[in-house]
């Protein structure tokens, strides 16, 4: 029995090529295993082996989605692999999104069973859980050993076409696929039992969870802005041309606060957009399309608003985890309040 052939995908960091400064490297392939691929290969045991590793820089992938995918698929194709494994990406957002994207492409376009692994808050989970099996992991590479062993065990099952169990049993993120099965009790009986539990304030488990409605109650609408100080906030990735805070083009881990007090309109030579999730052409022609400073100044002059704040706040929305976004908001809203801002206009793309 020949061993199953596995192709492994990792990023610049795990390939040992370099850290953030090498996040822009283009796809390349290497024979056999590289970096954590060694542990993966060992964990796969006698049944399979890592025959090749493909690598791509996290920001290169994010900014060149189509080309990166096409080039990688070209490289992967020739190995005639039985299995494709990406990551584990833990909580690294861009890496997780890249793992999800390439694993999905390999499965759909090359027909090779694929699996990846990452931490629950990684934006890659929400983006790809319905398309792929994504194993759960801890939030850092400290849990590499455990993640690799889980990945390899499941991957073998997939490759051999064995029956896959529930998320709880197998250890993958809940995919959101509603699957039928026959219970031992009929629905009416379960309904009455659930009612008895609920009526007695005892715990019960609903069979279908309502979608997450979020827990932010909107503030009441402001009827008259003429005496209010207003600020602009954007998730459209508009930053000064040199991107001094190095805000990422996707899966942002930071936000920036930028002065606009001397401008009546967003100057194209001082600002740009680094957002990787939309076609930037029209925004670059006129940045006011994303951060509408020109209109806000008009409104200030006309007395529609009392005053515009001296600065605007920016981050990149695409692929940014809910946790991070919530954290940014909680932090900068304190500054906004301290500066007397009473209303915010948030522009997204």
């Amino acid at each position: 029995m020949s061993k199953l052939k596995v192709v492994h995908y990792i990023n610049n960091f795990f390939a040992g090529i370099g850290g953030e400064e090498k996040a822009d490297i283009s796809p390349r392939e290497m024979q056999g295993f590289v970096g954590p691929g060694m542990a993966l290969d060992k964990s796969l045991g006698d049944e399979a082996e890592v025959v090749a590793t493909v690598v791509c820089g996290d920001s290169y992938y994010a900014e060149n989605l189509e080309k990166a995918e096409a080039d990688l698929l070209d490289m992967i194709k020739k190995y005639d692999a039985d299995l494709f494994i990406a990551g584990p990406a833990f909580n690294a957002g861009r890496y997780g999104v890249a793992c999800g994207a390439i694993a999905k492409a390999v499965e759909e376009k090359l027909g090779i069973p694929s699996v990846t692994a990452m931490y629950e808050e990684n934006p890659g989970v929400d983006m790809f859980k319905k398309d792929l099996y994504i194993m759960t992991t801890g939030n850092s590479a400290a849990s590499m050993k455990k993640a690799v062993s889980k990945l390899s065990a499941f991957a073998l099952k997939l490759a051999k076409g064995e029956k896959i169990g529930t998320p709880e049993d197998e250890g993958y993120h809940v995919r959101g696929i509603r699957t039928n099965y026959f219970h031992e009790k009929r629905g009416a009986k379960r309904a009455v039992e659930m009612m008895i539990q609920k009526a007695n304030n005892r715990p019960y488990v609903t069979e279908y969870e309502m979608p997450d409605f979020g827990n932010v109650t909107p503030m009441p609408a402001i009827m008259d802005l003429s005496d209010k100080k207003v600020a602009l906030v954007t998730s459209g990735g508009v930053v000064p041309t040199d991107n001094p805070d190095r805000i990422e083009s996707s899966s942002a881990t930071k936000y920036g606060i930028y002065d606009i007090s001397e401008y009546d309109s967003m100057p194209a030579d001082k600002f740009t957009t680094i957002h990787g999730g939309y076609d930037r052409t029209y925004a670059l022609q006129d940045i006011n399309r994303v951060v509408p400073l020109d209109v806000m100044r008009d409104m200030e002059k006309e007395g529609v608003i009392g005053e515009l704040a001296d600065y605007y706040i920016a981050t990149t929305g695409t692929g940014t985890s809910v946790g991070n976004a919530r954290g940014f908001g909680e932090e900068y809203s304190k500054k906004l309040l301290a500066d007397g801002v009473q209303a915010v206009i948030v522009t997204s793309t």
Partner: protein
Amino acid sequence: MRLEVGKIFINDIRFGESTYVENGVLYVNEKELIDLFIEDERIKSAKIELAKPGESIRITPVKDVLEPRVKVSGGGTNFPGVVGNKVKQVGEGRTHVLSGAAVVTVGKIVGFQEGIVDMSGIGADYTPFSKTLNICVVIEPAEGIESHAYEAAAREAGLVVTNFIGEAGRNLEADEIEVFETKGILEQAKMYPDLPRIGYVCMLQSQGLLHDTYVYGVDAKNIIPTLMNPTEFMDGAVISGNCVASCDKIPTYLHQNDPIIEELFEKHGKEINFMGVIITNENVFLADKERCSDGVAKLARLMDLEGVIITEEGYGNPDTDLMMNCKKVEQNGIKTVLVTDEFPGRDGKSESLADAVKEADALVSCGQGNIVITMPPMDKVIGTLEDIETMIGGYDGSMKEDGSIEAEIQIIISATSAFGCNKLTARMH
């Protein structure tokens, strides 16, 4: 109200010289049954066919399924308001049931026929009616008849035939007797003061032609929420005029054998205090929905309930009623459990319900109707296979050359009915 339900166990059905029961066998006479309704000008011809569990028979298109019962004593008659124009209240005294038998009305009302019952094979696993001995009334409409008229004719024929067969049980000795009783609200509350007071909110389909339900003969579109004793259902006070969306249809049989009512009575006096039933409808006009959901919450409060189980019939529009009822009842401090089925799309990945509220934190799922199965060919078809591909759940290529049918389980009668009569459910993978 106190009702004694006497079950006469039927373990076979056969054709005979007349309609009677002997040694557990129900004999029916084709001519006798057809003569009951054949004079109706709306009907061109009819025949009776028998289908038993395990046989290689496919029944389609199914309109309704009904259970033969008879009101032995206690005032009122079976199927009040619809058979014989007798409208007296029911639910008391003694009722006999020919248990194990069912009448199935079969026939084409409109071109998008829907509703299959397979008596064997994988399709049989999904419907409760593959386990009943079915007396199929196969009806052909008069030429050029208008749909409303034909629907009424088929419905009336089914009721009249079922009622007639039920009569065969009047003077027999029951094999098993069960007593169901709920008292007036105050007395009922005092009877089990330490048990939670639970009610059942039963939502009735009420949107128009082929989407109707009747309560004592009154079109459910025209009711506002009201109270009922659970035993009234057992005497056929609620009957189905709904012939659409097979998988979550509540045929008359399930109104007569409401599983929620059965399970609530199971625990009545032991773990809960079953106070009664609130019925409401599912009209399309939004103002009607507001009015009725307010009414449901009001009645639940008036009855001083601590919890209600809410069921629905249908998908889409009724999901909004379900959520409105849930939200308003919960906001009145009364706990809810909802029972519903799901349609998350062919791949199971989309939102299962058409509406949602955060108060709906206790939900029982009766399965999702979008999964595709292949039902094997059957030796005999009662009805017609014409139009299978335009049935709900069917599609171009559904009907295979060898006679097998590949379709979503939506096409199977009561596969996912939101009354919880089946064991099918769904979970998140």
